[in-house]
């Protein structure tokens, strides 16, 4: 009985979460006729890998891939430079107005940037940052979510280890790069994966802060596959575009899967506990 319930649960989970993904891949190999068939086909009767070639050239895939990679990695690098030292200071340093400043930094957790995008747009157009890579990345060097997650983890690192590093002649920067960052590796990787996901998939900010295809990213390329209005949509091509945009993301996810899980389970660090023996 329990086994049956478990099997039913698995089937439901897989049907709900896996099937649409499977269907996306399946449809990307179908013919134009098959994707619009009733009743719908679950599997392509014959493979049409040329859908990918079509999507590739119609999307101008390489151009947008380059922009996606560029904007994502610039954002990650920026966050490492901006957020890691900031989180270190809030987790481990004592200074005046610390609480107030921390509340300020976490403001974004309460009011997501989407609600104030119009002002950000106005600001960027004033300083001429619209349609530039810096305009698309610099605002995201600061992330309340990243800082918050890092602070939570940094706090669990014993002060004595940092004291020992200072006695070993480390400057603050060296404490961060040689002690804090390596010790907090799982959480830093996890936070950067989330940044990767956010930036790689971002459509909203790209559509607000850019009008020029020269700096636009992959989600915009997928959008460009959609014809305006309700004319016949070539779902097989669109699905191929989706799969292509997903592949780099998926590769990163598979590579970092273990790190994500251990990063989320903070208490996984046995080596920080001093055994009584």
């Amino acid at each position, binding site marked *: 009985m329990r086994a049956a319930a478990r099997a039913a649960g698995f089937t439901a989970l897989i049907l709900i979460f896996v099937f649409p993904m499977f269907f996306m891949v399946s449809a990307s190999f179908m013919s134009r006729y098959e994707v619009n068939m009733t009743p719908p086909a679950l599997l392509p009767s014959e493979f049409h890998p040329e859908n990918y070639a079509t999507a590739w050239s119609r999307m101008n895939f390489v151009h947008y891939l380059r922009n996606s990679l560029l904007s994502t990695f610039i954002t990650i690098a920026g966050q490492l430079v901006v957020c890691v030292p900031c989180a270190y200071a809030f987790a481990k340093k004592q200074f005046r107005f610390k609480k107030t400043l921390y509340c300020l930094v976490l403001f974004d957790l309460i009011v997501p940037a989407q609600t104030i995008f119009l002002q950000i747009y106005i600001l960027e157009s004033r300083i001429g940052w619209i349609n530039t890579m810096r305009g698309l990345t610099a605002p995201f060097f600061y992330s309340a979510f990243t800082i918050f997650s890092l602070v939570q983890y940094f706090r669990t690192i014993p002060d004595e280890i940092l004291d020992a590093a*200072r*006695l070993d002649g480390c400057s603050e920067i*060296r404490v961060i790069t040689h002690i804090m960052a*390596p010790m907090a590796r799982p959480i830093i990787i996890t936070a950067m994966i989330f940044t990767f996901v956010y930036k790689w998939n971002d459509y909203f900010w790209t559509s607000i802060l850019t009008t020029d295809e020269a700096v636009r990213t992959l989600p915009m390329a997928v959008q460009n596959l959609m014809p305006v209005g309700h004319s016949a949509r070539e779902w097989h091509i669109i699905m191929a575009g989706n799969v292509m945009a997903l592949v780099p993301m998926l590769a990163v996810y598979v590579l970092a899967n273990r790190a994500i899980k251990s990063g989320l389970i903070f208490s996984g660090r*046995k080596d*920080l506990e*001093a055994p009584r023996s």
Partner: protein
Amino acid sequence: MISIRNLKKTYPNGFTVMENFNLEIEPGSFTVLVGPSGCGKTTLIRLISGLERVTEGSIWIAGKDVTRHEPGDRGVAVVFQNYALYPHMTVEKNISFGLRNFGRGKDEIKKILAEVLEMVGLTEHAGKKPSALSGGQRQRVALARAISKSPDVFLMDEPLSNLDAPLRAQMRGELARLRQKLGATFVYITHDQAEAMSLGDHIAVMDGGRIMQYGTPEDIYDLPANIFTARFIGDPGMNILPLKDGRYIGFRGQKVGIGRPAGLDGIFIEGAVSSRENLGDAYRYRITAQDGTQFEMRHSERVEVGRHLDMFVKRNDLHAFDERGIRAEVRTPGGAAP
């Protein structure tokens, strides 16, 4: 070696831990700072090492004013209670990390590494990470890391308190040997008075950010300068009984005799046994005197709980303290307890 002059430390939240604090530590000495938690002993070590900034006053090490020096530039090494090893580095890296920061040459580092690992007996564990080591081994790595810098001063903050009892005794012996070998100055924190007595050639008893007494272990045990020291040092601490004139009299539980010997130069006490603990070689008794005051007695003789006893303490074993709790002359034999 270390000279602390008119030191004041106030934390950003406005709490002043110590004020007008002075201490001279001789070169080559082993000074133990002992006191209850919150007495300021850890703060003192952090100030000496530069991990905390001094509010007022100055700190001199080896004849130099180091008050404004960075922690790495003071010629001190610190061993922490929880070892503070870098968990992501091997034993070898843990030790060489600081040496590299100080710009030592590759060959020199290699030589130092071999030397200190040999000294603490961890040569074959050089490539392991701290998580693969036992508590005792980790403590040795921490020691090796401190030794590798050949500092003028070793500062140790309860380095043995995370170890279990037999290992602690063994490490105490190793520390004593190490000290002979290195000839450096040691400042050692503990809250355990027995450890203080056994390790230190000087002890500073601290409370509330002040030094209550500074002297040799013998001085501190035999001639406590005040009630705090008397109570804190010794196992058990000294019994302190109030006198009618506002002064105090003190004696150690081991010095209480049973009976009423004639012609005694000392005091007699009557009381009842309210509890008994077997310590193996003796019994620990809780005694309630006739006037209701309580004190502790150690005696090799077994006495039943509830029995009334005549007890005595010889005059030579008595300590007197004035109204402020400061050591005074023993004046009135026999006038102690009713």
